[in-house]
């Protein structure tokens, strides 16, 4: 699997992108004359963090489903941590939260790892849904009960359930594409993340009209259109690495970049509501884990189910 030439082409492409970004950052830094500049420092931190993220992601993907399940399980755990920290809960929720972190999250990823589709797709929407409400009710505190339970359920859905659909892509049995699913994961993550980067770049270069100034001051119509369309174009051009025809790859890329935008927008709305700029500070230049994977949340389950419905 590791010597799949298409996989090597993808990896080579990503590596070239990283080298290019570091080169551009270096050139910008040289031009600014070595004076301390917040934007340039942030750009440099972001690019450096990308190197680390790509390295970790590649290592996980290279070890197959086990590595990917562990990596995304850990990411979910950190994202849930950031999300719940921002969410007001009461002491009566303590044991519910313990369940969420140490039972529900590992179990969800365990089920993905053992490829039990029938259960991993309903564990959180059905069983954790009931568990969270019941455990908090048993703790006997009715103050803001609905808000508290809804927030914990939401956190589990977004941070754990949705994100677990990325490694779940490895469990799909696509005729004629057996043993090649890591390319599908790479394609998905690459298109969604590059859409984020391109929206940022287009927005910085041509951004004029804000889409939702209250929710996300940095999202502009120009950034959105430029980013989504150029990322969809890149996705189309990568059809050879997927089980799709070129136009199918294009359509799916467009859909997942759109879902990525929606995910980012919704996670921003939550941040604004809680009055913070970032979910955390774990990834230098990017913010928290949740700030980096916000666009994957909505895109992953939709992509998973579309591929499962039409291609397996």
């Amino acid at each position, binding site marked *: 699997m590791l010597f799949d030439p298409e996989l090597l082409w993808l990896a080579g492409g990503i590596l070239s992108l990283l080298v290019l970004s570091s080169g551009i950052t270096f050139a910008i830094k040289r031009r600014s004359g070595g004076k301390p500049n917040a934007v340039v420092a942030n750009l440099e931190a972001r690019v450096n963090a990308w190197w680390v993220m790509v390295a970790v992601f590649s290592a996980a993907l290279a070890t197959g489903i086990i590595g990917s399940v562990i990596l995304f399980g850990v990411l979910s755990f950190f994202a849930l941590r*950031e999300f*719940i*920290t921002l969410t007001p809960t009461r002491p009566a929720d303590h044991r519910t*939260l*313990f369940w969420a*972190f140490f039972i529900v999250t590992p179990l969800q990823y365990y089920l993905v790892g053992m490829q039990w589709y029938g259960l991993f797709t309903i564990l959180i929407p059905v069983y954790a849904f009931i568990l969270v409400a019941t455990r908090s009710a048993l703790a006997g505190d009715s103050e803001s009960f609905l808000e508290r339970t809804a927030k914990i359920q939401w956190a589990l859905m977004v941070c754990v359930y949705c994100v677990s659909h990325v490694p779940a892509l490895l469990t799909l049995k696509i005729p004629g594409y057996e043993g090649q699913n890591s390319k599908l994961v790479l394609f998905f993550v690459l298109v969604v993340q590059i859409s984020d980067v391109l929206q940022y770049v287009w927005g910085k270069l041509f951004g004029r009209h804000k889409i939702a100034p209250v929710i996300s001051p940095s999202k502009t119509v120009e950034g959105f259109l430029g980013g989504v369309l150029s990322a969809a174009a890149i996705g189309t051009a990568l059809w050879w690495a997927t089980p799709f025809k070129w136009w199918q790859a294009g359509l799916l890329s467009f859909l997942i970049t759109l879902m990525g935008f929606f995910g980012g927008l919704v996670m921003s709305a939550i941040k604004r509501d809680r009055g913070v700029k970032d979910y955390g500070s774990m990834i230098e230049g990017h913010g928290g884990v949740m700030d980096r994977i916000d666009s994957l949340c909505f895109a992953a389950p939709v992509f998973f189910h579309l591929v499962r419905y039409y291609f397996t």
Partner: protein
Amino acid sequence: MTTQDLAAWFTRVVCGVRLLPIGALPSTPAIYFANHSSHLDFTSIWAALPSSVRARVRPVAGRDYWAKTPRRLRIAKEFFNAVLIERQRVTVASNPLEPMLAALDAGDSLIVFPEGTRSLDGKIHDFKAGLYHLARARPGAPLVPIYLQDLNRILPKGDFLPVPLLGSLTLGAPLQLAADETKAAFLLRAQQAVQQLAK
């Protein structure tokens, strides 16, 4: 790397508290005081201090709790080098101020929780007089306010299962007891200094 450094790193990972830059801290023996809501409070402050500062800092803790079992006593004394003070039966022979002043005089810093006990309702309660007596006895020692957030959500009083949320620690500007300041006024000012650090 000592066992203490490892434990401090582990505490920072679990509690989400970040290492404080050494430049932000006073270079002389200081009195760090903070709000109190969890067992993780003193370990978090202890863990957030840079290694060289941590080696010379002594958490002040209630003898009634920490001397209850030999194991607790060993952890408090040998691992954290805590100053154990009497909270219940204060007599002339067991004046809690004496061991604290001795530690300051020996060049160590202190971590104190002027509320006296862990708060259950998330509010910062009235400060006990100890901080004032310390400030009056050693006017040269900077009093550094610290606000601890969300640690009670990680490990609430009375629970033993932690939930790994991201706690945070905010350091304030050092205070000094003013020349003609009354006890009540000083304690209120100190309490507000911690309160103001809350977001």
